[in-house]
């Protein structure tokens, strides 16, 4: 019940920000406008009827041929009402997205990972740098155009070349 309530409440309060609301296998996903993301997220957390206080997951997806290219999915859980909701937003290549790491501290590491793997910049993030890969790594591996086998090992690594110079 609370699930549809989240969609309805969002539409009521941000009629122009909600793009889409879909349901698949019992999971609700709401797509919102990237520009209004912070307002929506603050609302999701602060609104007493929703109270999504736990950010469970933050995933980046690269749709390569679609425009805008990237999608970010936030999975929220409410410890008060015990339900989950997915909020999605889209980011174009080269564009940036506002951070939610001040709303949920959990987003700090997750956004760093998305930056590391997809190269999406999060505005106002306190410490946006690579997390799983080395600082001198070239490219963003989870992009669809990054080869699965990784760097071409027959070629000298770019890092080594820089050191020689």
């Amino acid at each position, binding site marked *: 019940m609370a699930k549809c309530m989240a969609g309805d409440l969002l539409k009521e309060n941000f009629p122009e920000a909600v793009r889409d609301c879909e349901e698949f296998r019992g*999971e609700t996903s709401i797509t919102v406008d990237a520009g209004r993301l912070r307002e929506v997220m603050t609302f999701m957390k602060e609104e007493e009827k929703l109270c999504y206080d736990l950010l469970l*997951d933050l995933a980046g997806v690269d749709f390569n041929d679609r425009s805008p290219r990237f999608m970010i999915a936030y*999975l929220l859980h409410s410890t008060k009402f015990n339900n989950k909701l997915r909020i999605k937003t889209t980011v174009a290549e080269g564009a940036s997205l506002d951070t939610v790491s001040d709303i949920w501290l959990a987003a700090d590491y997750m956004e760093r990972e998305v930056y590391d793997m997809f190269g999406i910049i999060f505005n106002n993030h306190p410490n946006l740098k690579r997390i799983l890969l080395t600082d001198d790594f070239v490219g963003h591996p*989870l992009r669809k155009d990054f080869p*699965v086998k990784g760097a071409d090992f027959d070629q000298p690594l770019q890092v080594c070349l820089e050191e020689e110079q």
Partner: protein
Amino acid sequence: MAESRYMTINMGPQHPATHGVLRLLLELDGEIIVKAEPHIGYLHRGIEKLAESMTYPQALTLTDRLDYTSALSNNLAYCLAVEKLLDINIPKRAQYLRVLMAELQRIAAHLLWLATHALDLGAMTLLFYAFRERETIMEILELATGARLTPSFIRIGGLASDIPDTFLPRVKAFVEDFPKRMDDYETLLTENIIWKKRTTNIAPMSAEECIQYGVTGPVLRASGVSYDVRKAYPYSSYEDFDFEIPLGRNGDVYDRYLVRLIEMRQSNRIVKQAAEKLPGGPFAAVDAPLVVPPAKEEVGRDIAALIRHFKIMEEGFRPPCGEVYASVESSKGELGFYLISDGTNKPFRMRIRPPSFINLAALPKMIEGQMVADVVAAIGSIDIVLGEIDR
């Protein structure tokens, strides 16, 4: 470099108490930690990327290598996600066996944690006791799955095979014996004054802080928040079993220890119930011929079954377009798989929600202001596995 009154020291990545290749940069004011910064990624294998080039059944083998101390829980989480995508029903026998194995695996993972955590804090004796029981569980699991660390036994649609006849008697013997062993461990630690002094009020986290940091699992419950996926979103027939979720009060290292100990006893209860109530029937879905490969005897007898077997092994299957999230309560916290299917036989995107990665993010908050000697206690109390953090 600017003069600083703080000293920076490097802990790890090769350090016996960081449980893998975790590197911590600690800024110290004398013995007090001013700032801590984890550096991770030494074990990064690109599992999420690799999964995109594998068929659904193939990608299962990658999940073993996440949290290698509880591989069956990882298998289960992945299979639940794919099954949700396919919308198939799993027979009760398979569900109960999955629960039984996942809970045995939880006990094994917690025993490994208990042994190494106690060893880190100087209580060496427990290691030998805990590893003895862990070995028994490993042998039981090996009996059914044929492997110790990377079983890949829970398959999409059910299990890889049925259990051998010798399996249940050994499980029942273990279940009878285990509570007595637990009492033995507790005599060593629970009221031990040295243990209490090293763990009480160390690295505390309040309930609000835990939720802010997205912490799940025993660390969250030790702070008094009752969130366990097994109760919140029951999967694989957990609603059929009678068990309790232990909660702590102070959220310190000692409470996390107590919560995990009670969890082991509760897991033991679940295993006992699953073994007693285990229904008969098939061990894998019968109404999903395009997902579950045919039995070996059938392959030898029937050419159509042979072709079907090849098809599933070579090409896999094509779930409908869509996206699902399925999660389980692994020994570390909520382990989730977010799968996006584009209608082909390979996952378009497989995002793993690793509990250890997110719990580790709370480590700096836990240890800042604490003594440097307590870092080891704090790391041990979160129970991280680097295979899962780095993926």
